[in-house]
């Protein structure tokens, strides 16, 4: 590792801390560092205290954790599908989890957190399985771009099913629409604090797969000769990616483009070594989600824009430039 690359790591950690701190200070009301520190260190029951401890802290935590999880999820999908465009949002995994959760809430009337988590996982896994079936049916003839189109179409299908469920259930419609819009503000605190450790553990766990992912990046044949069972690796890694995406959706609703942008920014810095890529992607994803959330609070003051919109404003141009990329062009 060169000195320059070690600096990258330091810069990323500073960036993460900076955006996290910024997110506590910036909003409709701007607070000085002293005020924030006072609220955090010596809790009183003033309105400012409530805003910082009750609203900004959970919101920042949600953005950081979900951003990291979605970034890593995107990186894992890109690695095992050998598709630089893969991402939980574009591949329909988020849409699958959303549909399953809406189905559980509005049709089955389930509200218990463990059951909802199971449904989110099942929905995400279902979408992933559907996509896998398509890949198998096409017998390897799907280009990265075609696979992405298939994912987007599956997402469109699942979204219209979700829409049908939401529109026909007037009782829960408003809460559903809010959750489905995606974002980090005013999310369920219980969900956030119980699921975050699971997500962070899962991210740490993915680190174990880094050597195998490195081997796989050299091609299936080489990976085999290095002793990597590629089928098993694909299964496990896609499972981890789906788990990360599903729980993120449960916390923050479907949030797109973090999983696409974060791994590519990390690649610009860390090259192709997955050990470095994984934790840098996590840091970048967290900072990106948090920055987008801060931007969303300030672009249309005194209103607030949805964070999904600010992320799309960044993510869509990245998607275009990736599709125009020469290497991908050659692969297609």
């Amino acid at each position, binding site marked *: 590792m060169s000195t320059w690359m070690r600096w990258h790591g330091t810069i990323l950690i500073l960036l993460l801390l900076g955006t996290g701190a910024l997110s506590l200070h910036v909003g409709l009301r701007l607070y000085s560092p002293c005020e924030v520190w006072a609220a955090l260190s010596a809790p009183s029951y003033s309105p400012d205290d409530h805003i910082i401890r009750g609203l900004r802290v959970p919101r920042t935590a949600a953005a950081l954790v979900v951003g990291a999880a979605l970034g890593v999820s995107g990186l894992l999908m890109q690695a095992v599908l050998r598709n630089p465009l893969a991402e939980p949002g574009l591949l329909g995994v988020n849409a699958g989890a959303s549909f399953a959760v809406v189905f559980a809430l509005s049709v089955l009337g389930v509200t218990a957190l463990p059951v909802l988590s199971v449904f989110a996982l099942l929905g995400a896994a279902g979408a992933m399985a559907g996509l896998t079936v398509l890949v198998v049916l096409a017998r390897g*003839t799907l280009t990265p771009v075609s696979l992405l189109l298939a994912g987007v179409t599956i997402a469109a299908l699942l979204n219209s099913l979700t829409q*049908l469920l939401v529109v026909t259930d007037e009782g829960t419609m408003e809460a559903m629409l809010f959750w489905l819009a995606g974002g980090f503000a005013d999310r369920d605190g219980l969900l956030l604090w119980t699921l975050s450790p699971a997500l962070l553990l899962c991210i740490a766990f993915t680190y174990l797969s880094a050597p195998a992912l490195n081997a796989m990046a050299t091609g299936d044949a080489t990976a085999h000769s290095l002793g990597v069972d590629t089928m098993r690796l694909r299964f496990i890694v896609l499972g981890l990616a789906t788990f990360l995406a599903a729980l993120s959706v449960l916390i923050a609703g479907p949030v797109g483009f973090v999983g696409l942008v974060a791994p590519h920014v990390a690649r610009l810095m860390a090259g192709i070594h997955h050990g470095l890529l994984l934790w840098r992607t996590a840091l970048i994803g967290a900072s990106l989600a948090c920055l987008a959330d801060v931007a969303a609070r300030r672009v249309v003051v005194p209103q607030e824009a949805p964070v999904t919109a600010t992320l799309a404003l960044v993510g*869509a141009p990245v998607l*275009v430039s990736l599709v125009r990329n020469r290497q991908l062009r050659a692969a*297609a």
Partner: protein
Amino acid sequence: MTVALRFGPPAMLAALTLLATGIGSSWIGPERIVSALAGHGSDTDRIIIWTLRLPRVALAILAGASLALAGLLLQRVVRNSIASPSVLGIVDGAAVGVVVFFWFWSNEANALTVSIHWQPLAATLGAAAFALCVALLARGDIAQPVRLILYGIAMAALAKALVTVFMILGPVYRASQALIWLAGSVHAAHWNDSAMLAGILAVALGILVAAKATVGQMVLDQTTATATGLPRVGTPVCMLALSVVLTAAAVSFAGGIAFVGLIAPNIARALVGLDPLRLICVTPLIGSSLVLAADIAARVIAYPLEVPTGAITALVGAPYFLFLLMRQASHG
């Protein structure tokens, strides 16, 4: 052409029209519809049919026909049956045009400072701007429709983000109107809308019938088409422009009804083959039937609630798109 093919599509459209006019909070039988249309029958029937049911039916028919024709043209320009206006960012571009229009031309009291009748023009300009962007991005990839569609998806994501931002910036009550309209529905139909759309559709149909030889030539591959005297750039650009105008007109009155422009031309081609004049006549009929059928389903599925028409067409269109994608992938 056999008798069944000659009379099938018009007969189906007529039957669906009767059904769509009859269904509602009170069922009106075909014989009462005919007598009310002829000026007889009870006053109640006449009022229900002329002011409530028929405007909606007319708008569904016209929007379906416009979208289907736009799809036919686009598939000719791209020389691939997988293209359609809804995946090229045109629909969301039109939405951007409308929300920018609401945002820019409303005063402090949230009233529009210009006539609402300019809205279709704003939609067309927005659609044209986004279509132009997609076309420019894809100008080297015109032979690879899958990439073209992906650019469309990226631009559509960008457009959706802009729509939410401008909706928040604009007057609040307009935002709720825009939301209803974006979901794709014909329920708020008015005779004036239908008249304008009918005018645009009539002009487009006239142009196409007059230029049917050109539409026929576009079936040929690029080299052969050029050899038969077809301008290399001019004709596709004109057809693309016509397609954008038709889509924008349909979208500005009926919202984003997805996938009609994809399915209708394919069904029409399966029915009547490649003869340009027959295609120009049959495709709109199929498109109208599709939207009418979807609208009937949207009203019946969750009676007494209504679901968005666009969600119904997506349920049919998305699997069909996947089928086309897989077939093209396996044929190389």
